[in-house]
């Protein structure tokens, strides 16, 4: 699994390196779609006005599935979005799925979406969006597949955040988050501290953290540690002095 994740990092780096910045989101999502253990992938982003925007669908099937959910206002992606948790539907033909989402079950009856897996992409209150993917056969993801999906989605989320913040996606490459619980905790604490110091949203604070790490040629964890344990203060961003209000 380590190898698959390394391969995915290489694929992400390649997607960021080629072509214009405008197509970067599609190329990154395309790399994700290639890597996930499934038949089709959709990525829906939460925009700053809390509107949803399905920015990528690898085929017509998952595009129709997402469209049906958002039109009807019911389905696993919406549950994943509102409850901030994965929703794993092993068999859409199972009566319990139909009972849960009757309108959707009817709408997608002719689609080959036997199983559908929806994962939120978020860090606490930083909400990037949802990734939904399907398989033509019913049944669960294996433990190794789940582990890979969670890792791959975190990497994708970091890239999407970087692109959304107007940052250079390539500056993230080689600067992913460490996996150990302790340094992750510090990154999230530092995000909160920067929110308070700079009067900005969680997403902007996290962007400052990444930007500083890149500027200093160090890891995000190292900057977080300097902020939490050594009292490092970051200057307000000159481009938007005064900051933006915390939260939506």
């Amino acid at each position, binding site marked *: 699994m380590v190898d698959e994740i390394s391969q995915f990092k290489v694929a992400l780096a390649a997607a960021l390196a080629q072509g214009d910045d405008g197509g970067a989101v599609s190329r990154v999502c395309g790399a994700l779609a290639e890597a996930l253990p499934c038949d089709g992938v959709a990525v829906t982003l939460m925009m700053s006005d809390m509107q949803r925007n399905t920015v990528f669908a690898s085929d017509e099937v998952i595009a129709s599935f997402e469209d049906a959910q958002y039109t009807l206002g019911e389905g696993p992606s919406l549950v994943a979005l509102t409850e901030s948790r*994965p929703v794993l539907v092993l068999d859409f033909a199972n009566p319990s799925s139909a009972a849960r989402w009757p309108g959707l079950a009817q709408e997608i009856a002719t689609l080959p979406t036997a199983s559908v897996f929806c994962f939120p992409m978020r860090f606490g209150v930083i909400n990037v969006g949802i990734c939904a993917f399907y398989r033509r056969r019913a049944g669960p993801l294996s433990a190794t597949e789940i582990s890979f999906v969670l890792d791959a989605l975190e990497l994708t989320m970091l890239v999407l955040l970087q692109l959304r913040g107007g940052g250079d996606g390539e500056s993230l490459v080689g600067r992913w988050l460490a996996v150990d*619980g302790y340094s992750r905790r510090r990154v999230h604490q530092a995000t909160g501290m920067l929110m308070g*110091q700079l009067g900005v949203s969680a997403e902007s604070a996290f962007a400052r953290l990444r930007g500083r790490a890149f500027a200093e040629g160090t890891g995000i964890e190292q900057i977080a540690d300097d902020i939490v344990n050594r009292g490092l203060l970051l200057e307000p961003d000159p481009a938007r002095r005064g900051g933006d209000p915390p939260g939506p």
Partner: protein
Amino acid sequence: MELADTLVGDFDVADLLHRLVQHVADLLDVDAAGLLLNDHRGNLQLLASSTEATRLLELFQLQSDEGPCLDCFHTGRQVAVPDLQAVVDRWPRFVPAARECGYLAVHALPMRLREDTIGALNLFSASVGAMPPRDVQVAQALADVATVGILQERAARHREIIVEQTQAALNARVTIEQAKGLLASSGLGMEAAFESMRQYAESGGYRLADTARNLVEGRLRPSEVTSVSRTSKQ
């Protein structure tokens, strides 16, 4: 009791786990309690602890690599260490770290339902000696209630529910860390920041995870939280 009540109606895994460690620390003669869950990415992650002293958090989290919680998680069985000094060879990093925090004995109890172990409850004591069997039973019973609550006793989709619930709890924990940082930016330490948030939630009857989210999303002012906790201390 209160813990069982939370299983009915509006259910929130992160909050349930915080209550669990709080109850264990209040009811039993232990000096610290913490709870780690499998994150499905190859690590045990600390979800809740009775106090949030930085060194103690490190000690809990260290057990993603070695220690009684990791062994308990892998075997699905209780691990009792009445005297840490006797097992320094077994866990060369964990034992010195625990002793540095002032702990001399440790227990790890599985969060387990049938074949599935989802994590472990970790209890530390500042004195050498085995926990009384009755206390172990109480702690295990509380852990079992919480586990059943998380898994909702459904035979079907068992594994999927574990993944869904654990990821929800992990994300809630991230929000709590963000909120700790926000509160700490006014000069509080991380431990005091957590404590003031916990007291605010408790005194108002709010869920900890909701309080954290309201803070980080700007619906609740940090000063409201810190002023309540200051009042309740007097």
